[in-house]
């Protein structure tokens, strides 16, 4: 039973990793797109970020050195990632539900990471789990795990309630959206119940990780906890298949689109890509485009449909 659970969890982690990798690969290898930035762009010079300005505000901007304000990006990204600042600013009712949900997930991820650290420490030096650093880590992940589970479930229930009762969300809600939230509630609640109410012999998170690493089939995992772990594994594997993988998408929507203000004249990589993409052969059917499948984008762009002549 324990061996099957271990195998299942390993498989789910692999599916998650593969799902994320496929998604990242798809987005990262997409062709270079035309610039489509939105201001403010936080890596601009600090005095411009304040009003949302760009390098286009400087006379002869192309003669000036490139400025990249990493601190500006971090100043934007950190509150956005941790506190969902955008939602706080523009959709406070949703933030009240979404923030606990997401922050709860962060705490649960933190709990898993702490449990992994405790397990590794114990594997390196047996017995550290009950003393010193190991003990402190165990106390810490108990707190983060408890808080994370409560926040996550409360947030997910809040989101579910809003999705089902608010007409402006209801119209756009699919059965899949409801399932996703219910899935979170059930998986996290069972995991929580499995650890909290499984009795004195229930292995803790670090023991589970240790067992998983050592493939210790002698570890006894109570049924509720086993189901909770299996569901959590399934949920983790499911996420990259859905829109909930926006933790990946956000890198691209922000860094590759909203904030992508790199001029082509300063990038040989972009110039190479443009040359490659201008050789693509479009097949748009409208007569004025004149794309018959043999012409390249460069041919199309240099044809004048109103005069029937190239430049």
């Amino acid at each position, binding site marked *: 039973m324990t061996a099957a659970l271990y195998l299942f969890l390993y498989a789910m982690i692999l599916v998650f990793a593969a799902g994320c990798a496929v998604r990242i690969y798809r987005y990262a290898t997409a*062709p270079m797109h035309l610039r489509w930035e939105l201001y403010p762009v936080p890596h601009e010079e600090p005095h411009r970020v304040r009003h949302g*300005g760009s390098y286009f505000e400087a006379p002869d901007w192309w003669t000036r050195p490139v400025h990249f304000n990493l601190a500006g990006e971090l100043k934007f990204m950190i509150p956005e990632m941790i506190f969902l600042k955008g939602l706080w600013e523009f959709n406070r009712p949703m933030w009240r539900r979404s923030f606990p949900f997401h922050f709860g997930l962060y705490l649960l991820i933190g709990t898993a990471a702490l449990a992994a650290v405790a397990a590794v420490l114990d594997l390196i030096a047996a017995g550290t789990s009950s003393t010193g650093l190991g003990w402190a880590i165990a106390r810490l992940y108990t707190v983060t795990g408890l808080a994370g589970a409560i926040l996550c479930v409360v947030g997910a229930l809040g989101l579910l309630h809003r999705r089902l009762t608010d007409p402006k969300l209801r*119209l756009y809600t699919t059965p899949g959206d409801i399932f996703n939230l219910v899935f979170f509630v059930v998986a996290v609640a069972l995991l929580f119940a499995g650890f909290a109410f499984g009795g004195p012999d229930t292995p803790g998170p670090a023991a589970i990780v240790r067992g998983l690493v050592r493939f210790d089939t002698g570890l006894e995992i109570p049924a509720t906890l086993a189901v909770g772990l299996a569901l959590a594994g399934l949920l983790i594997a499911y996420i990259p298949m859905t829109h909930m993988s*926006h933790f990946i998408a956000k890198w691209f929507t922000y860094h590759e*689109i*909203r904030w992508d203000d790199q001029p082509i004249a300063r990038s040989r990589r972009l*110039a190479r890509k443009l040359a490659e993409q201008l050789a693509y052969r*479009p097949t748009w059917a409208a007569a004025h485009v004149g794309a018959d499948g043999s012409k390249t*984008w460069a041919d199309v762009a240099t044809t004048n449909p109103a005069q029937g002549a190239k430049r």
Partner: protein
Amino acid sequence: MKDKKIDLKDMSRTEREPLVHLEDGDLMPLPVPSADVVTERRWTPLSEQIREKYECILDDTCAVNVPRPQSKEEEEELVRKFLSGLDKLFSKENNWTFLLPLVLTMEHCAKCQTCSEACHIYEASGRNELYRPTFRSEIMRRLYYKYVKHGGLLSAWQHGDIEVNWPLVARLIELSYRCNLCRRCAQTCPIGADNGLVAHELRKLFSQEMGIAAKEIHDSGSMLQLKVGSSTGMNALVVKDNIEFIDEDMSEKTGIKVETPWDVEGADVLLIHNAGEILAWPENPGAFAVILNAAGIKWTLSSELAGYDSINYGVWYDDAQFARVALKHAEAARKLKVKKIVLGECGHAHKSLSVIADRVLDGEYNIPRESSMTLLHDIVMNGRIKLDPSRNDFPVTLHDPCNLVRLMGVVEPQREILRKICPKFREMEPHGVDNYCCGGGSGFAIMSPNNFSDWRFRVAGRKKMEQILNAFADCLDPSIPKYLCAPCSNCKGQFRDMLAYYDMWEKYRILYGGLVELIVNAMVDVKPGFIEWEWH
């Protein structure tokens, strides 16, 4: 009407009835009730003849005038073309230009509706569901999963189902022209999805695959520009003639001899105006000439095909047309061997040539492009012309063109100029990158088919009307002349028509105009009274 809920499935309804009808009482109220003309001015209904002839089955208006198919077979053929275009929208060979932003928007919208409150059209319509930014996107998303990703039952369960038929396609064509493409919605999306882009991509599909686009931006827009050089219909001879006339007029008006240089090889600056200015607001190119000459700039206009008209309507609906016009602009600069192109007061021309075309123009065609706001800022703030701000001693507010500000980041130069030369300058709220569209964006300013203007002024421009009235709330008295500065030709077109529609000149003496007019009005060497306080 507010209570009538529409559903996504209604888009496929086969009855030839509009899905929604807006009553004046549904619309967002204006801060000064007496400024609202909705009770005095009736919404012109679409005629039976128009409804019979064209597919006007979305709402109270009709922007594109798609002819009704004459048979079931014709309908099926159009649906087939639509699905073929949809597929192409998601292939790199056909749509490398916007593939990644589109796919990310399709796959990651959380449907949280955060974007809705940012949309001026949705708010002004009284929050009508049809105009919610996610309404069209959700249709598109369901089509994507079903017909592009070929999702089965599981996908329909996860992403929602949809049935495609001709009424749905016909309604989507119209719905893609109920968005100003201002991308204020995208700015607020926590994930970075872009519902404005969805409208843009739909327009592209209809144009590039089905040959369907608003007549004003395709036939009389980009096609005419590529044929004669300008969407105004002016060829090089006519435009030179008109500029000569403007020079004479300016010389008389300012007391300074004005001469516009043409085709000067090796000039520092190739200035490209929106040619609409030359016909509709000649004082604008005239004022540019006065300023650049006075500042000692070595500049020129070009008489090359499209070299004298900066418009690029392709940016709103068609990548092929967009690239063609951008190349024409670059070609004009390359031939003259100028050091840089400076774009006149036209927002979409700024964004098209400076930002979006940057990844179309390479090598010798990637000639530096600069905003006229930046050049003017340099001239004004560095004292290259003498100015007397007391000549502009009247209330002035600034409209931020979306393309110039939110989509390009040129925010401060124009307002620093105004702070220097207009003692009674006041901001609209919100302003800068958080501004609201004038309601004429994405081509609407030049589109008036059927009763589309009623929708454009009552709905799309309503939020801007609110902002204007609020900005001048302390001086609405008609004895005080007020100036709405809009450094964008399309925005000015919208203001010209919308302020007239709301009777703003007669009621409150609100005049609109560009930035250069204010600069020349303050120039010490110019005869006083450059700005004429009369409606035009």
